[in-house]
């Protein structure tokens, strides 16, 4: 708790802005059933389809006359969850895999890196499609599929950071003092590596949401009537005269991604004592 309070005390405007955006979205996702003016799926008004934004329909209506605002709010539930879980799983797997690979080095590193390259060499969308198709198209399977193609990025980043960090004299000093490998990794190397990883993870959130949308678009993630940002963007692409259909869910993805990125930047600065206390 103390750490959290210190984090909030920072004179970092961007960090606070990011926090506000993300908290707002999380609240919106939780409270969506209470907030929406229309039901996102069952409220269809074929006579009032393709309406531009108005006081009645803040973000307009789509090709089936559904309220875009309501659908954006509901979409946040799936999109944000899918993005966050994918990034978290990849982050955890990547840090473990890359940490070991970079720290141990030698043959172990070679084998582990060739394995991650093998996974990376598949076209990502197609690999995800294969996994999702084999396991059955639903939300949790597509999250799992995305995590499988996503973790090598984190593993490779962690590895390269660990390799550069472990050359520092303080790591040697710790070895000379008799610290175990686990202790060196946990106390010396990881604290000096997580900063850049946190930034990459938060940057990736937007990408993960987009990729999940891609899967949904192909019918492998969220099934059509459900509201999901990526699927909504692609809906709008087919009827691009009606700009509001894809612009608002697009802005939603953008705002989550940038909010998360502000948080990541602030987090990195906080984790680095050298940057602490600066504006």
């Amino acid at each position, binding site marked *: 708790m103390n750490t959290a309070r210190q984090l909030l005390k920072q004179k970092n405007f961007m960090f606070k802005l990011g926090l506000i955006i993300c908290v707002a979205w999380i609240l919106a996702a939780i409270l969506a059933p209470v907030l929406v003016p229309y039901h996102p799926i069952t409220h269809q008004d074929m006579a009032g389809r393709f309406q531009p934004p108005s006081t009645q329909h803040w973000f307009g209506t789509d090709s089936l006359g559904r309220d875009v605002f309501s659908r954006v709010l509901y979409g946040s539930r799936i999109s944000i969850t899918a993005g966050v879980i994918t990034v978290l799983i990849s982050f955890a797997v990547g840090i473990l895999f890359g940490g070991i690979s970079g720290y141990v080095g030698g043959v172990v590193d070679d084998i582990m890196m060739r394995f991650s390259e093998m996974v990376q060499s598949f076209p990502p969308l197609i690999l995800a499609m294969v996994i999702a198709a084999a396991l059955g198209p639903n939300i949790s399977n597509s999250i799992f599929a995305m995590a499988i193609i996503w973790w090598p990025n984190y593993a490779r980043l962690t590895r390269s950071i660990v390799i550069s960090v472990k050359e520092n*004299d*303080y790591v040697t000093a710790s070895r000379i*003092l008799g610290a175990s490998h686990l202790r060196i990794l946990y106390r010396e190397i990881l*604290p000096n590596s997580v900063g850049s990883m946190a930034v990459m993870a938060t940057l990736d959130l937007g990408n993960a949401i987009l990729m999940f949308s891609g899967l949904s678009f192909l019918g492998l993630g969220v099934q059509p009537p459900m509201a999901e940002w990526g699927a909504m963007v692609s809906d709008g692409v087919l009827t691009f005269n009606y700009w509001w259909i894809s612009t608002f869910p697009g802005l939603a993805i953008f705002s989550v991604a940038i909010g998360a990125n502000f948080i990541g930047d602030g987090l990195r600065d906080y984790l680095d*004592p050298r940057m602490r206390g600066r504006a």
Partner: protein
Amino acid sequence: MNNEVLLQAQDVKQHFTVKKERGQKATLYAVDGVTLSIYKGETFGLVGESGCGKSTLGKTFLRLYPLTGGKIIFDGKDISRLRGRGLKEFRCKSQMIFQDPSSCLNPRRKISEILSEPFVIHGMLTGEERRRRILELCDMVGLSSQYLERYPHEMSGGQKQRVGIARALALNPQMIICDEPVSALDVSIQAQVINLLEDLQKQLSLTYLFISHNLSVVKHCCQRIGVMYLGKIVELAPADRIYQDARHPYTQALISAIPIIDDGSSEPVPPQIVLSGDLPSPTDPPVGCAFHTRCPHVMERCRRERPSLQEVEPEHFVSCFLYEQHP
């Protein structure tokens, strides 16, 4: 200084496998057959140009690498194959001071955390005792206790180096490897740190292995000096012998490279010996004497045979055919 041996190296070899272009592998002969003894309570200087393996030798003595060949005997115990618990016990007896004070402290941790780390690792002392011991260490190295709650980036190079020294002293070691401990510091701070090291040596009867390329600093600090070239000791003698009566052509060149202040006195300045060429690659050392590619006195024999370290005078060892005594 007594003549009790603390650390004895017998034909120590430390080779590494390195990758060259196109995936080819080569062996890097970083340390190639070093035999020397370090006495209790002395400061042994190790000099040589960059890349000659002096830092590697220091780290080999600390058992940071699996030894390729030879034997290291520390305080009467063979430590060359230690593992696990035995190695951890050895860690209390031998420590290191680093060249770069800004990289030897973890930037994410406060000084107090850095200094309590040795006790945490070895499960020594309780909270209050640790606190007292850390204050004692700060006192010993001349560090104000107000720095304990600071981070390394908030301190100057000299202060950081003091923290590094305090950390090395924490476990009451017998020997400290000083790997160029002052070369990254300002000249005024250099003198302070060297005086500190000397005071500590007297107080705690420490043994130093002092690695440096600064011959003036080594002359000031060390009782005996080993000169390294391409992974081998080429000359080993008491400090004053090295400076007055260097025998090996490489040592002579090093000594003549020390800048002399021309104070206008009538003393003639000896002509400088300038070596041509670079240090040969340690992945492909020359056949015969390692120095023959640059030696001004090279003979036919040097290109074929490798000279061994021989005692030319009491306590003065040279590895050169110029001084080979035929039986």
